[in-house]
């Protein structure tokens, strides 16, 4: 089967024009700063937004990684650190995209219609990391610090500095969705 795949190197701070030029299916190697947040941190973010308070960190032009890592070991700044299922954050993601200027999200699995619409509206991108590849991804994380919500344990917000983190563009800024297009592309090549 055919399909040469583009690989694009991207660094933070994210350039919005580069972000908008990415297309679903592109492979990306990301270098720079990302922040983890999953279910419990999102619940607190939403609480802040609802009360009109500022978030404990600015998400403007930043990247959220849906991840709850295993603890650091004596030899590593963080343990296994793969993505968690993104659809659990679908309820919050449109608000966060619209209210904070978030540039991109990293996770695994498909997103709902509301999220895809808000990605289009905000010119954002949703990247897929390989679920269950937490050891491989850990090797790309060069430093790790807790920023806030330490009491949440693995659900705290971590700041990761990553180097050449392998990602796939899953939903691009035009709203193209690789969770629909990828299987379609495979099935159409198969039937040829």
């Amino acid at each position, binding site marked *: *089967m*055919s*399909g*040469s*795949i583009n690989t694009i190197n991207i660094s933070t701070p994210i350039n919005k024009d580069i972000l908008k030029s990415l297309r679903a*299916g592109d*492979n990306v190697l990301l270098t720079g700063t990302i922040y983890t947040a999953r279910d*419990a941190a999102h619940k607190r973010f939403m609480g802040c937004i609802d009360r009109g308070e500022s978030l404990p960190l600015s998400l403007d032009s930043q990247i959220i990684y849906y*991840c*709850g*890592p*295993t*603890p*650091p*070991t004596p030899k*590593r700044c963080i*343990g*296994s*650190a*793969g993505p*968690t*299922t993104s*659809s659990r954050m679908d309820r919050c993601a449109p608000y966060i995209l619209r209210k904070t200027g978030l540039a991109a999200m990293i996770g*695994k*699995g*498909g997103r709902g219609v509301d999220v895809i619409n808000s990605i289009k509206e905000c010119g954002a991108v949703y990247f*897929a990391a*390989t*679920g*269950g*590849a*937490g*050891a*491989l991804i*850990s*090797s790309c994380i060069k430093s790790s610090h807790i920023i806030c919500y330490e009491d*949440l*344990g*693995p*659900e705290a917000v971590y700041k990761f500095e990553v180097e050449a983190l*392998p990602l*796939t563009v*899953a939903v691009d800024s035009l709203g193209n969705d*690789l*969770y629909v*297009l*990828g*299987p*379609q*592309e*495979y*099935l159409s*090549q*198969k039937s040829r």
Partner: protein
Amino acid sequence: MRTINFSTIVNTVKQMCVDAAYVLPDDVLARIRQARDDEPFPRARDIIGQIIENANIAATEKIPICQDTGFAVFFVKMGCDVRIDGGNLIDAVNEGTRQGYAEGYLRGSIVDDPVFDRKNTSDNTPALVHMDLVDGDRLEITILPKGGGCENMSGLAMLKPADGLAGIIKFVRDTAVNAGGNPCPPTVIGVGIGGTADAASVLAKKALLRPVGINHVDDRYAKLESNLLDEINASGVGPQGLGGKHTALWVSVEYMPCHIASMPVAVSINCHAARRVTAAL
């Protein structure tokens, strides 16, 4: 009557938790390698390649294969002629889990109350223990660390007997395919048919204990397993839900007797990191 020390069980369980988190079973890894060689879609082949590289890094560098080191689910076969000296089995399994998850740098993924507090217990306890009493004086313990992402995609249908084989195939296929990329495909699918709603669910988990690549001993169920695998993989969902031939690596079916009015079918989906370790004492 044979006596086993409480501390022997604690130490065994502790080591099992750590080994399960770091090292993929040989049968699972062999099947994943086979899937990569047999995968025609380039993106899917790359993803399976990452999964294999990940397993190598985890085993050599002794870090967890996946950050979701799971709900510590245990299946125990306890011989009627075994006596535990110094405490009870459930306490020993919980203590081993507590020590294993701490010393192995594994993640605490359990909250104490599902609705109100949702406070992380920090040490991944309590473990979940399914017990079978069997003849003899052996104690066999299996851990199946179960990730939340794939567990959330489980399904249960109380089918009617008239729904037949076609109803079963439709339900299992739909459950596995509609899960999309969420359960980290390529997945391993456990199916429990029969019993009651609760028993079918446990049976589906038990089906995940059988090594991948080994079909049911009953030819009819073995054929059902391969039909289900073909049906699921015809979907094109593929590794991580991004397209490809391999949505599932394997399907195992177990059955048990059921009521004349019923045909319960439960589906337990395991991610590609289908971790399990068994120890016999």
